[in-house]
């Protein structure tokens, strides 16, 4: 599912900044931009000071999924992993960003009566959180399974159920009736009330299940495999999800990452190898791809 972007990059002012666990959430004014679809992303660069980080980088803009969108605002969530996210993390209200988007293909709402399972972790949260809001708005009951390093990172789960760029409380529990929170106009395609049940796994056991999120996913699918899995997270996790779903013949949609320069198909830099031997550009053919098209999720 794709919403087209205005042509070119545009400026947007930062309206606020939050810390959510180990993550930074930045809210940006985007008054004239279209409403994006979950799984889509934006290319972002700061207007000032882009280029003077470690090793004279960043140079190209950075791809970030939107976490929330609405009321003329977009929000993004990230962790400091390099010069680009470090610079973005230094943004304060009033600072300006260049943004291009929404870009790429988002998740497909093709449940065919199956239940929705959202699996992911770390900075894979934003598209899943945005997706959970849409599913809730459509009255789809969802199971959300998230893996984190530890409790500090797991606090990132609180963005779930926020929608529209706001951040509300949440945790390892049902988030309540989602339809009430989502955009009222959405058709009620789900069988349920749009409730989301979130389970967490942590590496160190400090919150939720002590172990991997794929263990939660395995148990969940063992219990009921009439599901579609929507996943986003680090490559190794996505590959584990892919393999697990493939083995159980459960359809899965994976929101991939790749090093990008342009985000709109111009550079052919962001490819992932497909099962048929060809390469797909993650930015225009994805970032959400049907897991069946991949033999494996590459390590980078």
């Amino acid at each position, binding site marked *: 599912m794709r919403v087209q972007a205005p042509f070119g*990059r545009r400026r947007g002012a930062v309206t606020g900044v939050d810390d959510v666990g180990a993550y930074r959430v930045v809210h940006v004014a985007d008054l004239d931009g279209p409403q994006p679809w979950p799984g889509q992303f934006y290319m972002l660069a700061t207007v000032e000071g882009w280029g003077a980080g470690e090793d004279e*980088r960043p140079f190209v803009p950075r791809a970030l999924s939107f976490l929330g969108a609405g009321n003329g605002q977009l929000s993004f969530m990230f962790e400091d992993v390099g010069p680009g996210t470090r610079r973005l993390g230094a943004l304060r209200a009033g600072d300006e960003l260049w943004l291009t988007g929404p870009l790429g293909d988002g998740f497909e709402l093709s449940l065919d009566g199956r239940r929705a399972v959202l699996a992911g972790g770390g900075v894979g949260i934003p598209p899943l959180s945005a997706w959970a809001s849409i599913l809730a708005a459509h009255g789809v009951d969802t199971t959300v399974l998230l893996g984190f390093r530890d409790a500090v990172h797991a606090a990132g789960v609180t963005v779930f159920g926020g929608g529209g760029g706001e951040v509300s409380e949440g945790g390892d529990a049902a988030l309540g009736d989602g339809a009430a929170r989502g955009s009222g106009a959405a058709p009620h395609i789900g069988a349920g009330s749009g409730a989301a049940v979130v389970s967490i796994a942590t590496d160190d056991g400090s919150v939720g299940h002590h172990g991997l999120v794929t263990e939660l996913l395995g148990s969940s699918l063992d219990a009921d495999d009439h599901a579609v899995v929507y996943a986003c997270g680090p490559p190794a996790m996505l590959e584990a999800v892919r393999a697990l779903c493939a083995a159980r013949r459960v359809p899965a949609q994976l929101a991939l990452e790749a090093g990008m320069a342009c985000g709109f198909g*111009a550079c052919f830099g962001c490819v992932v190898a497909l099962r048929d031997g060809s390469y797909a550009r993650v930015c225009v053919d994805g970032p959400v791809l049907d897991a069946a098209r991949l033999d494996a999720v590459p390590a980078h």
Partner: protein
Amino acid sequence: MSPVDFCGLVLEHPIVNGSGTFDAIAARRTFGDALLHAFPFSAFVSKTITLLPRAGNPPPRLWEAQAGLINSIGLPNRGLAGYLEHDLPQLAALPVPLITNVMGSTAGEVAELVEALDARDEVAAIELNVSCPNVKTGLDIGADPVSLAALIRALRPLTSKPLIVKLTPNTADVAVVAAAAEAEGADAVSLINTLRATAFAPGSGGRPWLGGVTGGLSGPAIRTVALAQVAAVARRITLPIVGMGGVTHGTHARDLLAAGATLVAVGTESFRDPAAGTRISRELKSLQIAESASSNIDVYQAQVEVDANSADAG
């Protein structure tokens, strides 16, 4: 800005795209018809087309360098037949003339490409990418004036369309190569292509990051190298030149034009700013207006004189 004549093509302004740096078909999927209404270039240069389809290099294909980017894309394309069938109709729908860029690993391959494109009205001009190793010498054909001359000699009779030779910067004296292209009847040259470069995976102890091992450096880092090469070529030949390399602002375009280019191509900057072509052509236009307003007196010199006469300058 008055229209520019480039090998008989009348273009609205001097800014085109660098081959392989703007996929107008993917951009239309992303941005819709807005792309056509505000098309950033005065002519569209296709990515390099080869006779047979190519998948391109394995990823990673990009490395972010200092004020630049290394790519080892590996020229993925549908091949000639796929280009003619799938891409050409869509590219013909663009509001500007189409320049198709081709490469072959033998003269015969290139000849086949040129003949096929010569037959298509949608193609306004042909650009020849000669950054391709000569099977005998191992050197890029474009690095060696003798191989290049032989190639152009074979191709020139095959088309009456403008033939642009895209030179490689990875050579000892690009002006000598350009002179060889001119002598054999090329209509224009374009330069610079990317500088050969590589990077290792962080902390890997020397494992090349790029799937293609070595790639090409583009962006601001190469701008001053591009300006030197364009100036050197312009001093040697009289053919029109498409200058490129690290252009991110109208001032850079104006420098390349001042060095002797007729057109300026924008490559990597379109990645950072999809509508960079439009912005740069506007910036260029303002500069040109400001300069002609000062009735051919050098604006900067005039400014310097003003400063020197101010009290601060005492």
